[in-house]
């Protein structure tokens, strides 16, 4: 799931929720969907919880450094 983007995960999760709410799948299918949904929810939560703030500045093309915000 590392290549999965947050948006896509959230969209798929929403799809699964709707599917389960409409109740069209069999109980077996429903359980499989639920499992997928749980994995996606976990992934989304992890993405949201990433608290490592990182501000960088590109001083020249291809050269990136950490940026210190100067208080003015």
């Amino acid at each position: 799931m590392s290549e999965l983007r947050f948006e896509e995960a959230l969209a798929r999760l929403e799809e699964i929720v709707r599917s389960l709410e409409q109740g069209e799948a069999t109980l077996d299918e429903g359980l499989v969907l639920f499992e997928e949904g749980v994995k996606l929810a976990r992934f989304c939560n992890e993405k949201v919880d990433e608290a490592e703030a990182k501000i960088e500045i590109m001083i020249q093309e291809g050269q990136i450094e950490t940026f210190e915000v100067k208080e003015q």
Partner: protein
Amino acid sequence: MVFVQPISVSQLTKQIKAALAHASLQDVAVEGEISNFVHHRSGHMYFSLKDADSRIKAVMFRGRNQRLSFFPKNGDTLIAVGSVGVYEPNGEYQLYVDLLLPQGIGDLHIAFEQLKAKLEGEGLFDSKRKRALPTLPHRVGVITSPSGAALRDILNVLQRRHPGVKILLFPALVQGEGAPDSLIQALSFAQNTDVDVLIIGRGGGSFEELAAFNNEGLARAIAQSSIPVVSACGHETDFTIADFVADLRAPTPSAAAELVVPLREDLLVSVTSFQNRMVNALQRRIESERRYLKRLRQNPVLQKPEHTINQRRQRLDELWTSLGRFHRHAVVLRREKLAGVVGKLETLSPLNTLARGYAICQNDQGLILREAKQVSLGEIVHVTLREGSLSCTVEGKKP
């Protein structure tokens, strides 16, 4: 006087037209008063522009005048931007107007309006071209002055809304002669990074100070960017060309940061809400399957299977009893019948006949004799009585 071959009126007119096609008469801005204004049924506007000493005929075709934000009328002093040409059929020179602007507007404004009309005409502002921003950007790119207030505001808002967001800053000049190129270069650097949304902007300023963001080159660079661009150029009310071309316009740099990154809490709430809905939906489903199962189990067939069996047993007994009765009845009938037959049989038995005194007469060969002519005189016949038998000689017979 030299005699020259005469040319036709059309030829002369064409020469005049060519002479007036000089560059200095193209894309001119003329200030004058509107008179003889006619808005033709075709949509084209015909009028004259005049001042104290001269007048010139003008036409603004429908395609151009549709975009006017005001309605020109006689007496208005306006600035008409357009080109001089010749209308051959009646030998008149006139001003073909592309833009009509209110009086007092400066060079910069005229240039702005011209560029805006031009780029709009090319479709660069079309809403269909505008891309959606990512819900949660992996990395936000910011193109602005590294020392301006705009950057501070953007960083503050981004970090407040979503502490974990990654930011990459592309410093640029936002004012002065070098600004457009600096901004264009920053945009170009950004294309090769993993930034998935860009904020380009600066703090507030006068129309002149914002000039870099009205630059044609910058507008085209924004249009060509493969990364969605949010423009944030200072004032709430001013619009720059960059604002029109960008995928989204924010009234201020802080507003741009809000548009670009969702509130972390909101995202968490969404995900939690989905989780809850999923769990509830599954629970309801399981519950409904359980109820169905319960209903099935309560069906009497499954509840008391002996009941059915007993019913069947009882029926079986009844049938058996019926069968028994029928059988005995049948036996009795047969016995009676048998007795009847036996009785008859006994009556017909020769032994019975013999008992009554009759005798059976047979010849020597054993043939039972019924008629006298079956024997001759002197033959031996055998007579069987009820008890014992006789051998006799025929002494006489009749007939």
